C-alpha cells in the first residue's frame, strides 16, 4: 500500500518537473542591487569622480555566482565592484550594502555602526526598514518588491530617483504618508 502510494506520488512529481524559465529569487535580487546603484545619488565626498561603485555583502552571501556577473556592467558611468567586508565598520565606505539573512541577530548593532555613513543599506530581513534600514526586499506573490525608508535616506545624505520611489511597495519614514 505504502510503496504503491509513494510510487504514484513520484510519478505525479515527474510530470510537473519541466525546465525552469523563471529566474531564482537571488538572481533577481542581484540585478536589483545593480539598479539601486544606478538610481541612487551619493554625496560627492563619499563618491569622488571616477571612483567605482562598491556593492558589498555583509554576512553569508546568498547570491552564489549571480553577483559576480554585475562587475561586467557600469552604473552611472562608473565601474561596479563587489566586496565582502568583514564587519560593519569596514562597510562604511561601501555604496550599496546588502545585509544577508545571517546578520539578522546583529541587525540593530550593525545599523548603529553604519549610522550616518552614506551607505545604501539593502536587506531581505523581516522588518528591515522599520529597524532603520534603507531598502527592504519583500517577496510577494513570487514577485520581488521593496520598501523604502525615506527617513534613513535623508539622515544618511542619500537620494533615490523618483522612478525607484514610485516602484516601492511602501514608503516609510519622515516624508512618507
Amino acid at each position, binding site marked *: 500500500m505504502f510503496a504503491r502510494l509513494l510510487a504514484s506520488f513520484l510519478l505525479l512529481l515527474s510530470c510537473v*518537473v519541466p525546465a525552469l524559465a523563471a529566474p*531564482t529569487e537571488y538572481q533577481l535580487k542581484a540585478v536589483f542591487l545593480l539598479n539601486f546603484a544606478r538610481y541612487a545619488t551619493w554625496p560627492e565626498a563619499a563618491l569622488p569622480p571616477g571612483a567605482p561603485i562598491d556593492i558589498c555583502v555583509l554576512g553569508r552571501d546568498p547570491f552564489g555566482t549571480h553577483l559576480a556577473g554585475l562587475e561586467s556592467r557600469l552604473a552611472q558611468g562608473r565601474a561596479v565592484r563587489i566586496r565582502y567586508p568583514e564587519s560593519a565598520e569596514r562597510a562604511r565606505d561601501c555604496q550599496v550594502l546588502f545585509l544577508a539573512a*545571517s546578520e539578522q541577530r546583529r541587525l540593530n548593532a550593525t545599523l548603529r555602526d553604519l549610522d550616518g555613513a552614506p551607505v545604501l543599506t539593502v536587506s531581505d530581513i523581516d522588518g528591515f526598514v522599520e529597524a532603520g534600514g534603507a531598502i527592504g526586499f519583500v517577496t510577494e506573490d513570487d514577485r520581488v518588491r521593496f520598501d523604502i525608508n525615506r527617513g534613513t535616506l535623508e539622515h544618511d545624505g542619500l537620494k533615490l530617483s523618483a522612478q525607484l520611489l514610485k516602484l516601492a511597495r511602501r514608503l516609510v519614514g519622515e516624508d512618507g504618508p
Partner: protein
Amino acid sequence: MARLIGRLRPLGWVLAMVAARPAGAAELLDLSLEQLSSLEVVSVSRKAQRLADTPAAVTVLTAEDIRRSGARSIPEVLRLVPGVQVARIGAGRWAVSVRGLNSRFASRLLVQIDGRSVYSPLFSGVIWEFQNLMLEDVARIEVVRGPGASLWGANAVNGVINIVTRRASETPEALVRLSVDQSGRPEAAVRQGFRWGESASGRVFALSVNRAPFEDARGHSLGDEQTGWRAGFRLDSAQRNQWRVSGEAFRQRSPETVDLPAPGALDATFDYEGAFLSGERRGHWLGGEATLRGYVDYVKMIFDPIASATVSTGDLDFQHRVNAGKRHEWIWGAGVRYQHVDTDSRSNIISFAPDVTQLKTFSAFVQDEIALVPRRWRLSLGARFEARNASVPEWQPSARLLWTPTDRDSVWVHGSRAVRTPSIGERYANLVYGTRTLPFPPVVVTIVGQRNPDLKAEHLRAVELGYRRQWDIGSTEAVVFRHRYDNLIGSDLGPLAFPNQYIVRDNGSAAVVEGLELSADARVSDRMRLLAALTLMRTDYDRTGRPVHDEADAQRASRNADHWFTLQARFDLPARREMDVTVRHSGALKAPGAERVGSYTVVDLRYSHPWNRYFEWELTVDDLFDDHHTEFNSDQFPSPYAYQGRRCVLTGRWRF
C-alpha cells in the same frame, strides 16, 4: 530498514535531478526596473538562509508552512519537522516528542509561546489539549532538535519548540474565520487589528474550539469532543521590537474515558481554564542589545472526578547580547521563576503529598560565539547554571563548532549535557494503576505507583553531526545524533502492603537513542514546491536484570516508531488557488499486549480558493483514503485506543 531505504531511493533520485537545474539567463541585467518588478521568481524560503549560520538542527516553520499544512492545532504543523514524532491520542490529546522518548506529556521538551513556557510542572509535559492558538497570527515556529539547555534552560533536554506570534503591526486588518466539519460542528474565530495612537499598534482576538470526538475500534464514539474558547490581545510599539504586552484567557473542556482494569472504565472530564499577562522590553544597553521579559500565568485544571490542580507562575528573564571585539559575540542572561502548585485529590485514584508545592528557580547562562576564521569557522561555547529550591545547582555546558567551507554548505558538530528535573507528579503523587490477582495466594491487590520525593535529575549527554546545503531552489539537511540518558526515571516492584502492591519510581534506567534526520525543501517548478522529512531512530534501554524494571522500560521504548516520514507537495494553481497533498507514514509501535499501533500511511489534502480580495474558502481532508487507524495509546491516564478515518473541514475566511 534496508527495505525502507530501498523504497525511498526514487525520492532521492527526483530530488537530485531537481537540484541539478541550470540557472537562468544573463539578459536580466538589461531589463528595466518596471520589468524586473513584474517578473515572477522561484522563491527560496529564506528560512534556510537564516539558518545557514546556525550550528544546530533547527527547523523553522513559517506562516506559509502553517497555512499550507491545513492544520487546526500546533502538533499537526510539527509533522513537517524531521526528528519530531507527532502521534494523535484522541480528539485533542497528542503525544509529541523530539528525538524519541515519546509519551502523552513528553517530558523532556521545552515549548514556549512568545517566550512563555507552556509545560506544566505537574507532568513537566505540555498539555496540548488547551494550546489552541489563532494559527493565522503565528509568525513562525522554531524547532530545535537536541538539547538547547545552555540557552533555554530546564526541560530543553531533547528539544525546544518556540512559537512566535506576529507583531500587531503585521495584523492590521480584521479577520473572520468560520469553519464546519463533516459532522456539522461549527467553529469561529475573529481578530481585529488597530492602531493605538502614534506609538503602538494592537490586535484583539477570540476563537471557539469545537472538535468532533474520536471512535473506539468498533466505531462507537469515545465522547472526547473538545469544546472551549480563547480570547486575547497583543500590543506592540510602533518602532520595531521596543516593547510588547500581551494577554489571553481561555477555557477548555476535554472529556476522556480513563481505563481502569477494575472496577472498569471511568468517564472523566478535564476542565481547563487559565489566563496570562506577558510583557517584553528591548533596548540598547552597554553597547549591546538587552531584552527584559516577564509574565504571570495561571492555569486551573479540574479532572473530575479524580483530582484538581492550580498552577500559578511568575517569571522574569533578562538577556544581553554584546559584541566584544571583532571575533566574540557574548550572550548572557539570568532569570527567576516562582511557581505555586496546589493539588487536590478528589478520589482514591490519585493522591498528593504534600498538596502544595512551591518551586523557586534561579538560572543564569552565558554563551560566547567566536569567529575563529571569519566566514569559515565558528565556535560557540556556553553553559547554564540552574538551581531550584534547595537542590544542588545543575550545570549544563554545550559546545558547537560550525564549518562553512562555501557560502552554501554548513557542517556542524555539537556536544552538550542537559538535565531534567523530576516533575511534581513523579515526586509527590501516588497513582492507582489498577488491580491484579496474584497467582499464589489468589488474592486481589491494588497496584499503586508510589511517590518518591528523593528522585534526582535525569541527565543527557548528546552528540550530533549535521550538514546543510543551500541550493538555488531549496535546501537539504542531514543530521545524525546520539543521545545517552542516565538516571532516567524508571519503575520497579516495591513493597507489598496488603491490599496494595507498590510500584516505586527510581532513577535506575538508562538508555541510548540514536537516529538520522533528513529533510529537503525544493521549489521544483514555479508552480510546485516539495518538502520531505524522514527520520530513522533506534531506542535501546540498558538491561538492569530486574524483570519488572526492564518490562517498564520496554514499554517506554515501545512507544517510539523506528521510522516515519512526511512528504508534502504544494501546488500553486492559476488564480491563486492552492492545492497541497501530504503523505505521512509511521512505522508500527511495538506495544506489548493484545492491541497495538500498526504502521500507517495517510494522505491529507488541502485546497484553497480565493474568491476575491476579501474572501477565500478552504477545504481540508485528513486521511483521504479513510484508513481507519490509531496512532498512540495514552500512557498517562490510559484510555481506549482512539480511531479516526476521513475528516473534512470547510473553512471560509474574510479579511477586510
